[in-house]
């Protein structure tokens, strides 16, 4: 018998007298938090990411300021002119390692948890480009901010690879002392566009 049939057979035997019907209570909603964009801003900053609010017309300037002269890679569909930036056309990991920064947009922002979700569409690029460089500048439009996790889950397409980002990479593995910045970008700079 194949391992597959064997395991499925054991599962069925184990549950022979067990009713599959269970009532699953709906997950509750958090109470209304008021101004979502303000909460998003506060919660991202709480995890030691940098947040800058800007207008649509001031975006290019804000991006340049966030980069501070760092050499950046951008996804092909960023929709923004960034002076001196390399457009990703399938750069190798080693090539990405030689680049200081990346600029992407985002799919969703979650206010309650201060989370940005990338679904790696052309305006965000492949997963590797927002991972290897040490500075991630992420442009989030205020209209993309939702209240909580269930709202994000409802909007996101599971067929796409997703990266949920809440602050810069971190570890608490040594004496539970939180250190920001391990393998992912050590600096996360969120540009919140209104």
């Amino acid at each position, binding site marked *: 018998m*194949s*391992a*597959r049939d064997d*395991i*499925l057979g*054991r*599962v069925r*035997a*184990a*549950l022979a007298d*067990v*009713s599959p*019907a*269970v009532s*699953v*209570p709906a*997950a*509750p909603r*958090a*109470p209304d938090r008021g101004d979502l964009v303000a909460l998003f801003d506060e919660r991202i900053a709480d*995890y030691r990411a940098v947040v800058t609010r800007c207008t649509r017309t001031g975006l290019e300037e804000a991006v340049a300021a966030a980069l501070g002269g760092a050499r950046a890679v951008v996804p092909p569909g960023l929709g923004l002119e960034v002076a001196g930036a390399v457009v990703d056309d*399938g750069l190798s990991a*080693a090539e990405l*390692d030689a680049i200081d920064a990346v600029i992407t947009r985002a799919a969703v922002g*979650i206010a*309650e*948890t*201060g*989370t940005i979700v990338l679904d790696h569409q052309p305006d965000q690029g*492949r*997963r*590797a480009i927002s*991972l290897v460089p040490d500075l991630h500048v992420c442009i989030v439009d205020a209209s993309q901010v939702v209240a909580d*996790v*269930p709202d994000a*889950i409802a909007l996101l397409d*599971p*067929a*796409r*690879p*997703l*990266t*949920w980002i*809440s*602050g810069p*990479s*971190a*570890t*608490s*593995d*040594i*004496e*539970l*002392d939180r*250190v920001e*910045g*391990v*393998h*992912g*970008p050590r600096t996360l700079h969120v540009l919140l566009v209104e």
Partner: protein
Amino acid sequence: MSGTFVGMPAFPTAARAALGDTQLRSNLAHATHTIRDKRAAVVAEVEEWEELRLAGAGVKEAALRDLATHLETLEASLTRAGATVHWARDAAEACAIVAQVAHSHGVDEVVKVKSMATGEIGLNEALEAEGIAAWETDLAELIVQLGEDLPSHILVPAIHRNRAEVREIFLRRMGDVGRPAPADLTDEPAVLAGAAREHLREKFLRAKVAVSGANFAVADTGTLVVVESEGNGRMCLTLPEVLVSVVGIEKVVATWGDLDPMLRLLPRSSTGERMNPYTSTWSGVTPGDGPQEVHVVLLDNGRTRALADDVGRQALRCIRCSACLNVCPVYERVGGHAYGSVYPGPIGAILNPLLNGVSDEQTASLPYASSLCGACFEVCPVRIDIPSVLVDQRAQVVDSHRGDRIPKAEAVAMKAAAWTFSDARRLGLAERASGLAGRVMGRFSRTTLPGGRTAAGRLPGPAAGWTGARDLPAPPKESFREWWARTDGGTHDDQDESGTTKGGGS
């Protein structure tokens, strides 16, 4: 090289050794209290926490109760999304599948995301035997691997090490397996994390094959989820060409929407954060992005055994947050190694016997590694009633010894008690004897309990184990039945033989 739990002594022996290690106790007390407080603070923020726990328990319970259906759905969704699905009955089969994938790409190393399932099956040792080095990339796992040590916590496997020990391990061992630690390494956690970043980066950049586990597997979409903090997970899940994920069959949830309560419960319970820094989800292969060859190994290794246990089945709801470890008074004092498994603490005390049975002495000792205080149940995000399962597992340990040729002292005592209690005359005689013992103890014992009752000190012989740490109160001089007979059910004057009036009021 890393250590192995094989041949660990039973819990009481291992715990005694751990309790004597003052450095370990100080490291553990500091760490468990820090994380416990962080969890309490972020859980207190969520008014609807109890409803959320109910929803999380419901999602996992529903998935388990119709597991065969969901596994078949998962297999079909994964296959549709371009992944290759393998099934493994046990550790040996799972390790062989991973080794085979690595061999087929001609590699002699793989990078690993921290994964409980691969620790459980001893994958690193199995790959080493096949000539393949498995590099742990989680900081704590790296500390454990370089120190040729064993993990002692689900979330923070090196919780038993302090910063000075970590520095020493990095300085001594990093150079043997790759980029050495800088000579001026200090014991600042940020500096140590920086050394790990440098050491591992070259491994991430050149690795062809990565191995991961998964926190959740969504049946209807074929999505795997990895929840992490450092970005080592993203590195492994993104940069290599080939990805193999070893996933316990209990990781299945039915639908994409089911992730909602889980992703709200896990980070707050685990690291005490509103959300962990990075969560990656992927469904099979995405052309042009990430690994182009994706394997998923669905692992049984005792899970169907646990599934058949009506009381213990709920342990399969576990999402490995480790909140139960951090609040456990036993874990806090003895640490994880004493449990002899990658699953320590309260959840380990039930999960190991459920997965493996109680036929060996070490596993059979685990359900007793608890005071049954219930703190673990209170913090469990998926409401696993660990104390009830512990008690049921203790009964199973006792039952497994019923056929022994030489019965245990406890079994003999219970049998004698049953014989005595089943006959009024025999019980009367026993009560008389116990009253006599009470008088003797009352006269000679030097221990007095609060309230004035005398107690026995340490008794000799087989009773020493019990009385060494507990007071045995002296039996009352008069039993209830004797009192009833003497006072005709309390209708006469309620005076005992010594003449003092008992009780109060009328």
